[in-house]
């Protein structure tokens, strides 16, 4: 009984969302509004239990690490984000959390630039490595904005465009697969979990 009702509710809400395909309608609007509310409401107790209690309450009130009061006060300044006059106070917690971007600079240069450069310099030992080399260089040149695409240079950078198009084609193909997979999942739910038709 309990299970059946749970499934009916879930199936009903699923179908409400699907009804958007027909047109925007109150069922969809209802489901969407509910989703927004429930998602946010869901986060509150979870954050309280998993974050607030162990990282704020326990250190201050139980471990007596009173220094943690400072970041806790900093954190509570978030509340002023929407205030007209005191909005500037919210900058402190934001700024504090953002300090870590400093680490992002060398680290992302390291892994998305230098490591990639190394792999782009592999010895050419066949047609494929040659193609990867040409492709990488021409596309990089295509996005080099300090020289006009004219003459032979223009033709050269144009090669990059073709490489990109094939690359985008690959993304395209995979995206189609991703979208279909999600639908498959939902239909597996409706047919399998709710109706028990899939074994």
């Amino acid at each position: 009984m309990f299970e059946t009702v749970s499934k009916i509710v879930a199936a009903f809400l699923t179908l409400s969302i699907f009804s958007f395909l027909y047109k925007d309608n109150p069922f969809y609007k209802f489901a969407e509004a509910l989703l927004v509310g429930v998602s946010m409401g869901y986060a509150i107790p979870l954050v309280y239990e998993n974050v607030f209690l162990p990282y704020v309450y326990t250190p201050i009130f139980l471990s007596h690490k009173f220094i943690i009061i400072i970041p806790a006060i900093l954190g509570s300044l978030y509340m002023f984000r929407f205030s007209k006059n005191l909005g500037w106070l919210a900058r402190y917690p934001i700024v504090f959390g953002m300090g870590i971007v400093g680490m992002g600079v060398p680290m992302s240069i390291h892994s998305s630039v230098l490591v990639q450069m190394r792999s782009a310099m592999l010895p050419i030992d066949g047609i494929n490595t040659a193609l990867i080399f040409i492709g990488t260089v021409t596309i990089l040149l295509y996005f080099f904005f300090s020289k006009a695409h004219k003459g032979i240079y223009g033709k050269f950078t144009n090669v990059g465009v073709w490489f990109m198009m094939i690359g985008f084609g690959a993304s395209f193909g995979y995206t189609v697969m991703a979208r279909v997979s999600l639908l498959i999942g939902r239909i597996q739910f409706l047919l399998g979990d709710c109706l028990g038709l899939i074994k």
Partner: protein
Amino acid sequence: MKLTYAKTGLLLFLMVFSFLLMPIPSHAASDSSSYIVENLKAEDIPDDDGGGLVLSWKPLPKEKRIIEYRIYRGVNKDTLFYHGKVDVNVKTGVSGDVMYYYDSGYNNFVDLQSPRKLKKEQQQSEDSPLYGSYPRDLKVTGPQLANYQILGVIPEKDFLFKNTKIEVEEEDGSVVYAGLKLRHFSGLYKKLIPGKEYFYTVFAVTESRSYMPYAEPIIGVPIDNSPEKIQNLYSAYVEDQSIMKFEWVRSLFTSDQTNHSLYLLKKSDLTAFNNYIDEQKKAEIDPEFTTTLENPAQLIFQRYCGYPYTPNNTVEVEIVNGKIINDEKHINVEVGAIESYLAVFSLQDRAGYETFSEVSSFDICNSAILPDLSDVWNVADRLNDKGDYNVVQWGKPTVFLTNSTFLNEDKTRILVNYDVYKNTKYDKIKNIFFNVFDMAGNKISTINEFYQDSKLKVNLNEPSQSVKFEMRIVANGSTGEDQIFTQSLVFNDEIKSLQPGKLFLNGKEVNKYSYSVYKNNYSNEEWRLSKKALGSQREIFDNVTYRSYIYKGVSKFDAKKGLFLVSSSFSARLDDELKNPIMTDLYPQEVTKTLDQYKEELANLITMRDTTDSEAEIAGLNANIDAYQSQIDLNENNSILKKAAEFKNKRARIKFLEKVKTIASRSFKYKIVKSDGKAHFSSSDVYRTEKVKKLPFSKAARKSFTTLGIDHFYPMPNWFQADKFPALIATFIFGFMVFFMIKQAKKGKELYIRPIAGIDEIDNAIGRATEMGRPILFVPGLSGISDVATLAGLSILGRVAKKAAEYDTRILVPVRDYIVLPIAQEVVKEAHYEAGRPDSHDKNSVFFITTSQFAFVAGVNGVMIREKTATNFYMGMFWAEALIMTETGNTTGAIQISGTDAVTQIPFFITTCDYTLIGEELYAASAYLAREPLQLGTLKAVDYTKFLIISFVIIGTLLSTVHATFLINAFPEK
């Protein structure tokens, strides 16, 4: 109509939520007694230390939809505390007929996460004995300390500095304890006491979280058993060195194991020995049983096994002049012909139980067959770390094949994967040469891996059952001529491919032996295992953590002050022979008090000795007197304790002792054992060095550590991570570029940006809309203002709006983010002013639709269809919803121009729009149009860096293709 929609919505809402109130009554109605678990049993766990019970019960059927079973435990029937739970998947239930739950070892007693107050378990009958878990309240938990063995784990700093001195009046005078608050413990852990009765019950929790009635509590009594039997003992006798070697397979190591012992047994005594064991077993089961037999085997070796660390499992015993002698353990055994002996190993536990292994006969061999441990090895501080690793490394790098795959159907072309084990000393591998031979022994090919990508492609002339590889590594000046590796790929019928066979180094099998690295510091008696490595590995990293804990038994408490009481004495280190701990105390007075007690005891013993006549008694007393005397000497003459006694300031004294403790526990000496696992092993000496590194300790603190830096290694923290050097340079270059170019742009320096093809298209498209007399749609993306793409989109909006104003064409700008809204309004307004057409500006042309992703798109689609827009612009950040808009635009026949840096959406824009600005082109277009210094400067900085990158890539590729790999190797690999 709309209102009725909404009413429907509210009704639905109520429907969904009202259901939540149903579960409780729905279950209450059903018969709850059928939910009580049956066959609940608590049985002793065999072969353990007496701290374990196993609970078992029959799980309820799947139809009952149980999500969890909760277990309660106590020392009497009336109060049972929550102890743990077992989760169950509600859909499938439990597959077996019995469910088990192990209550063994130390588990959580109380810590800061425990509840504040003791609570009666809800949803149970009024008189139920069930309570929640132990609370932080000492009034409740304090008395429970007596019911378990309680272990307190205390961070060293808290023990040393956060304690409170507490004097407790006990039977034999007042005793001083260190009192600690719960918060100073990392946790308190409890273990069952052997022989004590414990009560258990279990109940089920259903899917709707109803707690079902509990089963009638049952009793369990944990029993201390003899340790688990060691399965395999191997013994060997090396004739030419007259050394016996023993090795065994370690059993599960538990806290109560104390000694490793080895015995020699005459083959003729085997029956007597077995009788002895049988008798011992009987005695264990039946305490009344009196033993009569003596152990016929002779003890030849014994040592403490060093809990909680993994002990050494090899032993060497030397026979000198036909005898094994160890005065300290009172061993003096005469050994005859080895052939007539068997070896036996035993494990002893605290309760005095002893478990013997199967007997093993000696493999009599010669030292020539023992593994060769002549590889040069060393111990060093690991570089590039925060000072918590030592590295132990040996030998030259090894190369080996890991896998192979056929590349074609004829099976004549194979892809072979190889791997390399290096060490810090040989870390720069220049070349690896592979010579490939076919089955007949003919060389098929020679490959020079000048860039190691871990794979080779080999052409076989014909499908082959076996291919042999000869390999050599050139690294750090070593040509590797003296280290030729051979390995074959052999066809494996089961796996149906060529699989790597055994690896040989100069004809010797490499992985027949493995390395075990053992370590020992100043504060533990025995060597412990650091890490084990394969015969092909060349280094191990030994972790020396910074964190240290003090373990103390807890049995007393002070409820008034909220303190747990632990003994205040602690050991600073062991003496140089690693025998006696150098004990001291948190409180200086206690040190003197203990010393006085020793002296008093000593004086008593001496008077006793002088008054007695019995020879035997005098001998016994003399031994005691010696022990006390040596303790007193140690306390009075030890440099650490002497120095500590000099401190006037209490905190300074503890600080000094802390430093000493740190050195003692973080400095390790190392040795390597290379073994085949069957007692054929070679053991190295302790590694020593002459070059003593400078250590960060005061003279006073390190005074007693005479071997520190020579054979004991203390890991040092480093100030720069050398492998990040390329990143450092790159960060500097790029940082400078950005800073400099933005400065230049701000100064108003003319910076060239090539014309972007899409920009002309923008103008044309606006023209077309004007021709058709229909409005333009501009969507500045769906993300917020902090997104670079949104900013770029807005600056293109400025241009489009200006052109539109010039042509007097209406522009519509739907916005999703309410912070973007006023900014977009401002942009459009300004554009109209700039174009000199403030009159044509309509404030409502920029409007907010909704924040919801799909509803926003539905709104935009509505605008497209209603207004019949002639040209649609999508500039900014888009997600999955993008194609819904462009599809509609496509059906209405509008010209569509898009620009985004969302790589996943670009393909859809390209296929559905007439023109697309790809990725960075969007930024470039916006910088080109807006000429805003910040954007322009960044674009140029990125551009110039990109030029550098292109140059490096081209040069690097050309160089590496002609075997010059220095440039490519200058870049990081991971």
